[in-house]
C-alpha cells in the first residue's frame, strides 16, 4: 500500500475541515479528488505530506506513519513529516516556483541541496526532466516570463527531480488559461502510464473520468462517494454526487 489513511481529522482555526476520512491508495494508482470549494480537498492533500497538522487519525505513507502531535509530540510529528516529504512531491495551484531562480535552477535546487548530488549529476537529471516536460528551450528563463502552463510543467519537473514515489497535485490546472490546461494534463497522463502514484485534487472532470483509477467525491470534510470513474460519472450512488456533477454537464 502506498498510502493508507485512517479516520483523519484536521481543523483550521478550530473549524473541522477534514472530518474523518479513510482511504487507501495502491502504488501506481491515480486518485482524483473532486468536490465543491472548501470541502477539504486541499487540506486533505496537505495533511498527507505534513504541511498541515492532523488532529486525529493516522496517515501511513509507505513506512512512515503520521499521527496527531497531541499523540506523538510536535517534534516527532515534524520529524516524520520531514521523512514523508522526502518521498512525496507536491504541485501547487499557483505553481510556487522560486522567482529568484531560473527554470533550470528551480529544478536542480532540490537534487543539489536535499539529495546532495553534484552540480554535474543534478544538471544531467535536470536536462532529462526539461526534455520530458517540453521546456528545454526555457531552461534559463525566469518563471515570470513563462506562461502558466509552462510554469506548471516546470513545477512538475521540479517535484520529479526528487525521484518521489508519490505526487500530490493541488488543483494544478485551476490557475491556467483554458487553452493551456491540456499541456499539463498530458504530462500527468504520461506519468500515470509510467506507473507514478498520483493524487490529484481537480475540477477537470474529463481528466478524472479518462485517466483516474478511482474518483473520490468530498463534501464538508467527509467522503460522500468513492469508486471507479465509471461509477461516479456513470451511475453515482449518492444524490449529493449527482447534484454536484450536474454543474459540469
Amino acid at each position, binding site marked *: 500500500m502506498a498510502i493508507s489513511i485512517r479516520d483523519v481529522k484536521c481543523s483550521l482555526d478550530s473549524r473541522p475541515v477534514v472530518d474523518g476520512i479513510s482511504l487507501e491508495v495502491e502504488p501506481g494508482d491515480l486518485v482524483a479528488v473532486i468536490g465543491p470549494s472548501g470541502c477539504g480537498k486541499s487540506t486533505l492533500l496537505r495533511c498527507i505530506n505534513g504541511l498541515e497538522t492532523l488532529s486525529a487519525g493516522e496517515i501511513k505513507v509507505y513506512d512512515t506513519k503520521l499521527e496527531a502531535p497531541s499523540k506523538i509530540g510536535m517534534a516527532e510529528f515534524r520529524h516524520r513529516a520531514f521523512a514523508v*516529504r522526502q518521498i512525496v512531491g507536491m504541485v*501547487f495551484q499557483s505553481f*510556487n516556483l522560486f522567482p*529568484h531562480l531560473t527554470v533550470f535552477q528551480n529544478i536542480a*535546487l532540490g537534487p543539489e*541541496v536535499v539529495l546532495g548530488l553534484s552540480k554535474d549529476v543534478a544538471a544531467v537529471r535536470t536536462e532529462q526532466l526539461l526534455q520530458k516536460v517540453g521546456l528545454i528551450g526555457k531552461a534559463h528563463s*525566469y518563471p*515570470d516570463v513563462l506562461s502558466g502552463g509552462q510554469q506548471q510543467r516546470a513545477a512538475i519537473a521540479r517535484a520529479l527531480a526528487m525521484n518521489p514515489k508519490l505526487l500530490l497535485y493541488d488543483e494544478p490546472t485551476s490557475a491556467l488559461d483554458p487553452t493551456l490546461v491540456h499541456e499539463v494534463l498530458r504530462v500527468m497522463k504520461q506519468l500515470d502510464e509510467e506507473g507514478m502514484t498520483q493524487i490529484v485534487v481537480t475540477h477537470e472532470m474529463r481528466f478524472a473520468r479518462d485517466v483516474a483509477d478511482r474518483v473520490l467525491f468530498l463534501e464538508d470534510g467527509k467522503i460522500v462517494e468513492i469508486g471507479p470513474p465509471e461509477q461516479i460519472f456513470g451511475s453515482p450512488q449518492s444524490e449529493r454526487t449527482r447534484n454536484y456533477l450536474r454543474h459540469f454537464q
Partner: protein
Amino acid sequence: MKIVKLFLYILMGGLGQSGGAVEPELRWGADMESGAPYAYRSPSDPSVTVGFEAEVVAALAEELGREPKFFQNNWEGLVEGLRRKDYDIAINGIEITPDRERVVRFSRPYYYTAQALAVRKDHATIMGLSDLKNKKVGTLGATLAERILRQQAFALEVVTYGEEVNLYGDLALGRIDAVLLDAPIALYYAAPNPQLKIVGPPIGEMRYGIITRLDDEELAIDVDQALGRLIASGKLRQILERWNLWNALTAQAWNLPVTPLDPPTAYEEYIKTAWTKPGLSARLQQYVGFLPLLAQGAWMTLKISILSMLLAMLTGILIALGRVYGNGVLSAGCLAFVEVFRGTPLLIQLFLIFYGLPHLGVRLDPFFAAVLGLGLNYGACEAENYRAGILAVARSQTDAALALGMNWRQTQRHVVLPQAFRLVIPPMTNDFIALLKDSSLVSVISMVELTTIYGQLASTHFDYLGIGLLTAAMYFLIGLPFVRLSRYLERRLNTSLQSVRR
C-alpha cells in the same frame, strides 16, 4: 560563512595594530582639538603634534629616559581613558580640582594661570566680572570659568561650548556678549583677533597638573621629580617663555623673576601662520596638504563603517530569524535586544561599552569597541528590516521548499533569505549611509576618524567652512560607491522578481 571569517580577520588586524608594548614608551593622552597653545596639529605640517604641552612631555620623557607616544582622546574622556590604561599620563590644561583628585593623581603644577574676560572691541560697558549682569557669557563646560560664572550673585546667562574657536567666533558675531576662559586660550584665540579685546585683571587662579592613575604611584613620583628638575634647570620656564605663557603667578610660585629671558618665538610663529589669511592659491595648497591626513581619517571611517555594517547584518539576520521563527522565550529575547539597542542613544552605548565595561573588568580596544557599539546598534535596525523582508516572502514559497524535502535551514538559506535580501537592499543602503555618518560619534571613544581630523584641522586654522566642505565631500565620496552598488544589485536582482506573489 566566509564573511564571518573575513570579519574576524580584519578585526584581529585592527586589534593587532592598536595594542602595543608599554615599556620604554611614555604614553600620553591629550585632545588635539583643544588647540593652541596646548596640543594641536602643526599648521605647517599637520601630521606633527605641537604645543607647549607637547614640549613639556618631550622634556619629561627625556628626563625619564622614555620615548613619548601620543594618544588622541576627547578632552572630556581624558580621565576615563587614563583609568582604562589607554595611556599612562594625560596633560591637556587639566586644572587641579578636588573632584578630579578623587579619581586620579595630579603631579605638582607645571603651570599657574587665571581666567581672562574677552569682549568685542566696540563693547565699552563691560570692564570686568561685575559688569556681566544680565549678559550672555560663553565658556567651556566643566571648567573653573564656568564655576566662577555660576557663583556670581547677580543674574547672567551662561552658555557652555565644546570648542574655544567657536566661542570667540560667536563673540565676534554678537551671539554672546563676553567670553570667560583660561588666559592661555584667550592669548591665542582672542588677543590676535582684531574684533576682540581682553578686559579687566586676571580672574581667579588655577593650576595645571599632569594626571596619572591612583595606583601608579611609581610613575607619579618619577613625574614629580622630573618636573622638579625641569623647573630647577630653567627648561620648563624656557618652554613657557617661548610660548609667551610666562606670567606672574607661575614666577611667584617658583620664586623666579617675572620678566622673561627668552623671546616668545613659538607664539609669534603660531600667530604668523595661523592668523594671516592665506591667499587663494596658498589656501588651495594648504588643502592639498590636508589630504593625506583626511584620507587617513576617511580610511578609518570606512574601515569602521564596513566592519560595523557586517556585524550589523550578521546580528540583524540572527535577531530577525529569532523574532520570526523563535519560540516564546527566544522571540521575546530578540525583541528585547531590538528595543534596547534601538531605543537608547548610540552615544550612551559607546560610552557604556568603552568606559563602562572596564569597571566590570572588560577592557575593549577602541577600534573593537567602536565596531561593537555601531554594529549592535545598527544590528537592531537591520533586524527589523530583515524581519519585514522575511515576512514579505510569501508563505507559499516556504510550502514549496518544504514540499521539496528541504529542512528549515535549507529553506531559509536557499528560498526565503535570497528573496528577502532583494527586498531589503534599499533600506539597508539607507542604513549604511546613516552608519557611515554616525561613525563620526566614535571620536568620543578616542578613535581618530574623519570628523576627528576635521575638528583638529579646523580648530587650528579657524577654517570651519573650507575644511568642513572638504570633509563633507569626503563623506559623500566614501558613500557614493555603495549607493551605486546597491542600485546595480537592485536592477540586476529585480529582473527575476516581477512575478505576482501569493
